């Protein structure tokens, strides 16, 4: 198994390098160069343009410049943004990346889990009205035009029902008198949520080792305790309203992307389950007299999980794109929106940096899926 993982990791590094090279070439292919942009002012004497070029190292051969850029990247120097001068690109990315990661990870995890469960249940109930109905819903959600879907979500929840704000990261009014930055609160929200989740996870792991009678109470208790803990923390921190402001702006974008990503997994799971249910070992399981739920969950679904998990690989690319669209429609300032704005404004350093980061995000997600698969399939684990 480790050899398999090792190979995937090396492949990822290689792909990353290739990706960076391509990114660089992409940017470099644009006619004119940075110096021209900076010196659009006709009052600057021509000699100055040449001097600027030399200073910026733009007259060096392309390959050298490319290697320079890549090397700089790994030293953490991504350049300075044009549009948000004088902030450095890495600074901007550091500010915005956690937001996109929250969006991406939450949406994908929740979507996968719900898609898996509903797909499994639906396949079992083949031929019923429920199955047809949910297939229609699934197909609709999968093929709907995402910007429109996002707008519909805004219309329904923000405009008509007025449950959540229609966009943006925060409501600036609430933060006028705040002593802390939005990122401070945002990161604290992430930490507390993670702590709560880790706690629940550990309790669940523990619950598998104790007698059956206590399992459900322990699990329920851990969830309640975790939620109470988080709420208590924020209630006593004095920043509760600021935290809520951020959270309420989070709900719609995350919800939209989750629902959008959910459809793919659900449809795939349903199809895969139908195929899995025809396998011989399902007949064996039934012959053993196992109850339906056990056959469905322990035998069929656990096997159907494998191809569906692999299917994640294809949906990651779609998710990243979906994230960009969601951030744009909601004006939610994550990496995706930054990419769009930087590209349209021709802020090359920022665009390159963000594109590379998005590439890394995709690659790392891939690697995680590959690692996950190795653990899920005993045929890989014990080759």
């Amino acid at each position, binding site marked *: 198994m480790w050899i398999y993982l090792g190979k995937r990791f090396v492949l990822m590094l290689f792909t990353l390098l290739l990706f960076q090279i391509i990114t660089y070439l992409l940017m470099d292919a644009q006619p004119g160069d940075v110096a021209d942009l900076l010196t659009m002012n006709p009052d600057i004497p021509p000699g100055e343009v040449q001097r600027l070029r030399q200073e910026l190292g733009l007259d060096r051969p392309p390959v050298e410049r490319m290697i320079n850029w890549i090397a700089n990247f790994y030293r953490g120097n991504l350049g300075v943004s044009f549009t948000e001068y004088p902030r450095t690109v890495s600074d901007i990315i550091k500010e915005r990346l956690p937001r996109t990661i929250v969006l991406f990870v939450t949406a994908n995890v929740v979507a996968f889990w719900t898609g898996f469960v509903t797909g499994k249940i639906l396949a079992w109930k083949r031929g019923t009205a429920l199955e047809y109905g949910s297939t229609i819903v699934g197909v609709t959600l999968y093929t709907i035009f995402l910007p429109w879907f996002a707008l519909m979500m805004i219309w329904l929840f923000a405009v008509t029902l007025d449950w959540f704000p229609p966009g943006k990261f925060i409501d600036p009014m609430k933060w006028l008198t705040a002593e802390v930055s939005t990122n401070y609160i945002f990161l604290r929200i992430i930490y507390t949520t993670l702590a709560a989740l880790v706690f629940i996870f550990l309790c669940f792991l523990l619950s598998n080792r104790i007698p059956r009678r206590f399992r459900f109470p322990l699990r329920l208790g851990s969830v309640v305790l975790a939620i109470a803990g988080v709420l208590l923390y924020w209630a006593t921190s004095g920043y509760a309203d600021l935290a809520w402001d951020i959270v309420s702006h989070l709900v719609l974008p995350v919800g939209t992307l989750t629902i959008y990503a959910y459809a793919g997994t659900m449809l795939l799971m349903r199809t895969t389950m139908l195929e899995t249910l025809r*396998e*011989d*070992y399902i*007949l*064996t*399981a*039934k*012959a*053993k*007299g*196992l*109850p*339906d739920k*056990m056959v469905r969950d*322990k*035998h069929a679904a*656990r*096997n159907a999980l*494998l191809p569906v998990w692999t299917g994640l690989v294809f949906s990651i690319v779609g998710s990243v794109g979906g994230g960009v669209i969601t951030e744009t429609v909601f004006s939610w300032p994550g990496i995706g929106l930054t990419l769009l704005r930087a590209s349209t404004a021709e802020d090359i350093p920022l665009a390159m940096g963000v594109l590379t980061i998005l590439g890394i995000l995709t690659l790392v997600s891939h690697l995680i899926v590959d690692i996950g698969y190795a653990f*899920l*399939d*005993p*045929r890989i684990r*014990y080759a």
Partner: protein
Amino acid sequence: MTNNDKVLEVKNLTMHYMTRKGPVYAIDDVSFYVRRGESIGLVGESGCGKTSVAISLMKLLPDNAEIINGEILINGHDLVPLSDAEVRKFRWRHISMVFQAAMNAMNPVYTVEEQILEAMRLHRPEMSDKEMDEKIDHLFELVGLDPAFKSQYPHQYSGGMRQRAIIAMALSCDPDIIIADEPTTALDVIVQDQLLQKVRDIQRQLNMAMIYISHDIAVIAEVSERVGVMYAGQLAEMASTEAIFHHPIHPYTMGLMSAFPSIVGPKTELVQLPGEPPDLLNPPPGCRFHPRCPYATDICREKPPEFKEHAENHYAACWHPGGES
């Protein structure tokens, strides 16, 4: 010793599959019984209904299949009218099965041990963990597997090992009767022979009833005391192995026996059965074998013959038993 205690009794079982073109009568009025500790064989061509009988006995039918008549009595309890939830209590505990082409009969993501344990946990909850563990070791030794392998995954086993594991699994809840559906077909001949010996030994050792299903007459002869010959979804003949081989009554059986060349004795001409088994969507009227039967007469074409006793404990469904006109 076998006694008259019938572990399994099948009476007038009729089952059909619903297809796009109409119902296919895969099993038509089949009746037989198996006594405690007895081993019977069920033989016939592909598509004659023997596997259908096997899965019907455990009521493991697919959605488009339906038992429309008959009784299946396990230790006196009729399974046919029972709901799926009720039938589950019988499965594996009283009647279990070793599947055909069992290469994929085990779930690839769980250890072999776990797959055996789950059945035991369900049907023998009174056993402690330690007892179950010992039982699995014992079963492994019985089928000729090293118990150390039990915590491995099916893909780590060879074909022959997997088949043995399946047999161990089928025995795990001490069923009264076990159905072996062509368990050795997918294996090479040497392993096949070993396994066959094993199966025979186990059956005798545990005094367990067995139905051995195969299209290979030679194999059936090795393991069964009595043999049932199936044709086109019906039982053509049923008698002791000796009687079937040396004194077949039904022309189809006679054809089968002649088709099996003996390596000893004088050379006899190979009797061929012309034609093919009938399409079960539209079976021929009267006796289903009549289009291929050299002794067929008008009555054969019109009325289906009754499955009745023609000699002691020797049943056949034929108007001209033994070929007499």
